[in-house]
């Protein structure tokens, strides 16, 4: 604890209640931080790659999640250490930005920290290490650009996209039917993609899951599935060529915002009130009927009377539909969300070719599917699976696949996977290192070693001898001048990732390297950790 004394021997108070705080400085602080970072990375290391293992996470309430998605694991890990929290952030930002590679980025980060620790022990100043890493990451970044290939896909030829999504899915538990899920993901993304602007709004893809059935029963619905049923049990369950009125006003007498009281003091008033009330209901239903609606979707509830009137006038209705779903329905059917009955006009109705109720299994579960919409720009991926955890994991996996497909539409450059890109970058960085004078050279070289961490982990998880495999592949890359050699995780018999069709997106990989370097830099710059000690 740092204490300064004045001329009379009294201590200056620098930190309040310093006795109750523990403090680490200098190399110890660095080492502690690096150790924490490495501990997190080590947890995730075994989840990397197609043969990666899963983790069981039990939440404070006892709910169980089984996953190998890096971002999800870290999110739920109940982390207390500040540096570990940085790693969690790291994986989260990769998730937000790219959506895939959340495990890889943490493993790379751990590997970089491990190398940095060695350099620190040699007495190299952390800032020099950080700067060296920065230079090296630039080299790797540019090299990735250099070895990337572009491929062309069209709406008709989706094969390349499917292949890339399959690489993403192959590390998840759903890899049993990765081909099918990859196709679903690609079709979904293409359905909502704006190919001219090269953008995809993933909000238009709704991922719904229902427990039961097989994973193979998962389907893509060109429309919206809503977890609701008709408001009245006797309304038709199937409507063709529906004109949909999308309402955000309840089927109830209006509630003006201003406070008011209606006083009833005579029998006449009581009776007019009654008449008025009936008229309200009647008019509301009539209004919907007049504009030609054949289905009403409402955000709010209905009064019993309104419900019956709707039924009697043969106007099916759905109530309590959530805001997000309502928006999706509006987008899909080309309708407008109408806040008041007075504003309901025929051109504000949405169109859908088919609305039907779908029921499952032996329970009373039902869903409403709105299909063949006027604007096929909103789709639903409907996941089935043996148990709740499976569905949740499938949802996460599909999300990753969707993100990958989106990234490819934004930028159709790819690099090859299986660790080949990392090995190639490592070779390039290593070669470039000699051109830099000073301590940075060491840092750059360490960066190259750190990049080897990913293929090493891949090989280890696949049950291959890590060092033998890595060195063999590396020498092969240099001898054949072929940057596409990687680790043969699935025991296919070839190292060439072009033949194995294992791709990853260029931006995903680049982002991994940039983010990991940034976080390592941040951790290296910390030289003082002050924590209040436990009570």
């Amino acid at each position, binding site marked *: 604890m740092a204490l300064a004394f004045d001329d009379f021997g009294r201590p200056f108070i620098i930190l309040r209640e310093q006795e109750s705080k523990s403090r680490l400085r200098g190399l110890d602080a660095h080492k502690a931080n690096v150790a924490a970072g490495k501990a997190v990375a080590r947890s995730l290391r075994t989840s990397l790659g197609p043969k990666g293992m899963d983790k069981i*996470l039990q939440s404070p309430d006892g709910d169980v999640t*089984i996953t190998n998605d890096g971002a999800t694991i870290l999110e739920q890990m109940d982390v*207390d250490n500040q540096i570990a929290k940085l790693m969690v952030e790291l994986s989260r930002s990769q998730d937000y930005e790219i959506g895939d590679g959340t495990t890889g980025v943490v493993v790379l980060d751990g590997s970089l920290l491990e190398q940095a620790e060695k350099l620190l022990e040699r007495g190299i100043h952390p800032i020099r290490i950080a700067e060296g890493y920065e230079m090296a990451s630039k080299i790797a970044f540019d090299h990735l650009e250099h070895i990337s290939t572009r491929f062309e896909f069209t709406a008709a030829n989706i094969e390349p996209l499917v292949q890339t999504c399959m690489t993403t899915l192959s590390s998840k538990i759903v890899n049993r039917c990765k081909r099918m899920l990859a196709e679903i993901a690609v079709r979904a993304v293409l359905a909502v993609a704006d190919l001219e602007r090269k953008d995809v709004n993933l909000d238009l893809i709704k991922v719904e899951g229902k427990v039961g059935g097989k994973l193979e029963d998962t389907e893509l619905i060109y429309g919206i599935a809503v977890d609701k049923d008709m408001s009245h049990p006797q309304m038709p369950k199937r409507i063709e060529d529906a004109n949909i009125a999308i309402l955000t006003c309840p089927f109830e007498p209006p509630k003006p915002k201003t406070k008011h009281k209606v006083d009833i*003091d005579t029998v006449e008033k009581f*009776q007019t009130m009654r008449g008025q009330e009936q008229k309200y*209901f009647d008019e509301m239903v009539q209004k919907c009927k007049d504009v030609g609606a054949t289905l009403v979707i409402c955000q709010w509830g209905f009064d019993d009377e309104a419900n019956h009137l709707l039924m009697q006038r043969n106007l099916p209705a759905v109530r309590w539909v959530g805001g997000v779903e309502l928006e999706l329905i509006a987008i899909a059917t080309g309708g407008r969300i109408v806040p008041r009955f007075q504003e309901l006009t025929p051109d504000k109705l949405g169109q859908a070719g088919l609305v039907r109720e779908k*029921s499952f299994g032996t329970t009373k579960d039902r869903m409403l599917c709105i299909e063949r919409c006027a604007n096929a720009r909103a789709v639903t991926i409907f996941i089935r699976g043996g148990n709740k955890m499976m569905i949740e994991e499938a949802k996460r996996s599909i999300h990753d696949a969707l993100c990958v497909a989106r990234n490819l539409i934004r930028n159709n450059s790819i690099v090859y996977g299986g660790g080949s890109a990392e090995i190639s970058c490592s070779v390039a960085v290593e070669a470039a290192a000699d051109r830099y004078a000073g301590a940075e050279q060491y840092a750059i070289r360490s960066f190259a070693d750190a990049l080897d961490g990913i293929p090493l982990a891949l090989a280890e998880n696949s049950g291959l001898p890590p060092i033998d495999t890595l060195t063999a592949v590396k020498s092969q890359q240099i001898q054949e001048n072929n940057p596409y050699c990687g680790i043969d995780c699935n025991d296919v018999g070839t190292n060439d990732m072009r033949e194995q069709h294992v791709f990853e997106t260029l931006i995903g990989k680049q982002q991994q390297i940039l983010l990991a370097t940034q976080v390592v830099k941040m951790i290296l710059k910390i030289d003082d950790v002050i924590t209040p000690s436990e009570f």
Partner: protein
Amino acid sequence: ELRDRDPPASRPDPSPVPEMERVLKDDAIQEKGERARMASFVGAMAIADLVKSTLGPKGMDKILQSTGRGRSVTVTNDGATILKSLHIDNPAAKVLVDISKVQDDEVGDGTTSVVVLAGELLREAEKLVNMKIHPMTIIAGYRMAAECARNALLQKTMDNKDNTDKFRSDLMNIAMTTLSSKILSQDKEYFAELAVDAVLRLKGSTNLESIQILKKPGGSLKDSFLDEGFILDKKIGLGQPKRIENANILVANTAMDTDKVKIYGARVRVDSMSKVADIEAAEKQKMREKVEKIIGHGINCFVNRQLIYNFPEELFADAGILAVEHADFEGIERLALVTGGDIASTFDNPESVKLGHCKLIEEIMIGEDRLIHFSGVAMGQACTIVLRGASEHVLDEAERSLHDALCVLSQTVNDTRVIFGGGWPEMVMSKEVDELARRTPGKKSHAIDAFSRALQAIPTIIADNAGLDSAELISQLRAEHHKENSTVGIDVISGGLGDMQKRGICEAFKVKQAIVLSATEAAEMILRVDEIITCAPRRREDRM
């Protein structure tokens, strides 16, 4: 003077701050590698062993006592019910509980089998892991084996969809096989008949809501019966007819106490007593008009979901109309369904309201209770099964058993493929899987072998539960199955092998398929785990 109490940075530190490696919160637990795998294996197998003894026709029951108030007791051998009521802390065990629940929701039966099979798969996997075979290799083998087993079973299915008589006897057999492991096994023929009749009335719909199960304590299980009409567990209003022929029924959901004014902000304000009386009279008049409108529909029976106050009840009685109040929502929906009427809430357009019809409404007595019986209903789909039995526990268990049978039957009506029971499907699958293991090179074949052993464990457990010499029986069974197209299985009743075709022991293909697939899926999920991170439990005030 500046003093630094920290050790100089250059001094080498022998242990590089081990406590800093701990990145989780204090109470959180992290288990890795072998330990994690062991924890999940042990948990899953414990669950499987727990329900194991309930498997098969001679399986035993369990008593479940709730921790809630009253310490209510449930006696059951339904796997899903047992597992649902357990408080489990082991995450792997939770996976098994979850699959049994899903099995229940999806096909309704086989909830014990699926857990036992998953447990056996993991037991075999544990041995393989100890032999240093990588879990991923085991998973790959299990997947191949599951696919192969499914196909083997698929080839041996029988489909009597086109032959109504045969199909009915298939259904009977399935129902009897399902019921034979439940409390209803004594009267299984009787109940199988009941269930098949009820399901066939549905004509292919899986909507079990139109089969109403009423439980009335008293009498014996044999006194249970299927009623073709609809029974509403309600009383008829005072002074109203107790028997109506050719009834026109209006099913309604409307307030028959006082209609509230629904316009927002309205309130009644009066300045004299006489005005109160006026308003009251107006209110009464309003109700009278409403009742008149209802009567104007030309009905002689009125069933409402909400309360009917004395005043309207009296009016109905005067008009000679039978009025039933407070029929719950399900009752209303069912009644509307079976009588073919609308559920009405407004009564201004009598011509557009569809009334329900039935031939006869009468009050009947079951045991001590009076019920309203609607017979000769327009829609033939619905029916009511009245269960009688010695106690609530018996009735609850009987309902669960019957529910299982109904679920299986309704699924079978849609997917008419049928296979034999009594350990036959397991042996067929295990034979094919064995073949596959022999053809497959590499370490995967060990896993495929293990899958076959796990399959054989099911008939073994059934035999063990029945107190038979399982080792002897299973080996005989295997030898029998070596012949092509054998139909031999374990006959628990006679305690030996028997021809399943002759004994009429059948199961639905869909159920068996779901068992194999979801058990494999669950085992795979647990096998893939190499780390368990348990968050600190949320603190509760009262942990009871």
